């Protein structure tokens, strides 16, 4: 996990709720966030088997509105955001002119002329700065709403049932028919009164689940209402430790581990996210990314599964016959699978699934098999 100690870490609107639940905190992207409440393994398991409740309010929220919003995002991001229909969302990258990845982010199209861009917590200031700068030549407004917006995720097989207990009956169908990577405004009827949220069927766990955007003022109330509603089906508050092991099992990259300013999207397996062919116009990073695609990557991001019990960890060298051929970016014992899993950049010669490599576990090489993520797929 990528944590930084700046000495001045911020609190989300839910900090008091986490304290009440006895959370262990960690600094993440400049925020004091719950690492876990009781046992990160139990929290992980709850998400796979029932549901978990996450505070993701450290994530950024940037509103892009105006007649040229679609055109602007086609220029500012590597994807073709103008092709996203209203109500749907798209995973994309914000790159530098050199093709380096500033952030990976999800963008929701809320109206013809309105988008919501959701960057990672630690990258939010850089994303806001880049979008603002790139907006100069367009008729759009870029508004950073991060500090006013809370984000709560309900993830796991029971999450739809939990949401339906709260969503106004007139909107049940909107929820049951909500597609993956789609979002809609819903009204929640709660014991503390009605709460309006933007409900998205997205997540970072490999399970069905929802992310709820709402103003800070109502976040604590909604958190409590959700915990209460989900109690009988096993909804458990879950921290960043479980979030990290869940996303790793699902084979999802984490900025700071798998992605950085130095990463080529083509090495990270994100080539399809870069809309070189689909977009006619220029966009930031286009020339550099065309060159990177042409050149091909020296290393590729792969999955590794351990033959033994010990786990590979971030930055451990990947070796073959004692020579270093790569580096682990994330690794942990998989709680669901019961064996060690990892992601690593390895030389393309060793990137084929089925190849056996070693990971240097603090001086002791241990065999790992190259696989294609995800490690875990829900049934």
């Amino acid at each position, binding site marked *: *996990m990528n944590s930084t100690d700046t000495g001045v870490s911020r609190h989300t609107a839910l900090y008091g709720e986490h304290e009440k639940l*006895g959370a*262990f905190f960690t600094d993440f992207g400049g925020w004091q966030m719950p*690492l*876990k409440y009781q*046992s*990160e*393994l139990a929290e992980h398991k709850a998400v796979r088997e029932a549901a978990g409740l996450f505070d993701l309010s450290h994530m950024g929220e940037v509103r892009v509105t105006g007649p040229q919003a679609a055109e602007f995002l086609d220029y500012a991001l590597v994807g073709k955001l103008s092709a996203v229909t209203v109500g749907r969302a798209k995973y994309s990258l914000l790159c530098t002119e050199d093709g380096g990845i500033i952030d990976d982010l999800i963008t929701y199209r809320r109206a013809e002329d309105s988008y919501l861009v959701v960057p990672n917590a630690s990258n939010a200031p850089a994303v806001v700065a880049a979008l603002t700068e790139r907006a100069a030549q367009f008729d759009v407004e870029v508004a950073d709403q991060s500090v006013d917006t809370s984000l709560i995720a309900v993830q796991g097989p029971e999450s739809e049932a939990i949401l339906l207990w709260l969503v106004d009956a007139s909107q049940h169908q909107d929820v049951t028919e909500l597609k993956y990577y789609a979002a809609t405004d819903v009204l929640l009827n709660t014991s503390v009164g009605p709460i309006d949220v933007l409900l998205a069927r997205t997540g970072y766990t490999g399970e069905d689940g929802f992310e709820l955007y709402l103003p800070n003022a109502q976040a604590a109330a909604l958190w409590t209402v959700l915990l209460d509603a989900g109690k009988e089906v096993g909804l458990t508050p879950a921290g960043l*430790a479980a979030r990290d*092991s869940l996303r790793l099992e699902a084979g999802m990259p984490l900025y700071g581990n798998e992605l950085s300013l130095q990463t080529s999207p083509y090495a990270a397996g994100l080539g399809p996210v870069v809309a070189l062919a689909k977009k006619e116009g220029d966009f930031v990073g286009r020339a550099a990314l065309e060159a990177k695609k042409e050149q091909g990557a020296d290393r590729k991001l792969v999955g590794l599964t351990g033959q033994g*019990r*010990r*786990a590979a*960890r971030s930055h451990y060298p990947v070796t073959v016959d004692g020579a270093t051929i790569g580096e682990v970016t994330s690794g*942990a*014992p998989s*709680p669901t699978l019961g064996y060690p899993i990892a992601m690593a950049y390895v030389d393309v010669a060793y990137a084929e699934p089925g190849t056996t490599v070693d990971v240097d576990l*603090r001086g002791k090489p241990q065999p790992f098999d190259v696989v294609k993520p995800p490690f875990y797929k829900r049934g």
Partner: protein
Amino acid sequence: MSNIPDGLRYSAEHEWVDTQASNGTRIGITTVATDALGDIVYVDLPEAGASVTAGEVCGEIESTKSVSDLFAPVTGTVAAVNDAVVDDPALVNSDPYGEGWLFTVEVSEEGPLMSAAEYAEKNGA
């Protein structure tokens, strides 16, 4: 949050030492360590008959989050290893002073050890 039993003594590296145990001096890790580590998934312990030296690394404890060295709090020969925690490392989290003990040592020399009060004060426990 952490509980530090009175009858034991403690190393700076968060091991507890019980000289009242049968079959040598019994050693485990404290709740200060288990709270910091998170859920333990793998323990690598010295084998019975191995020599350990106070203050030196004698094994590893791996949690979902990280790997930590296990330091020997005493010098001597390992008498017994708790096979139950090797099979089920979660015992170290659930009962660190009881069923989650790690190994016993025929002690030839102790390393620097603290009382429960000293250890608790040092770790704000």
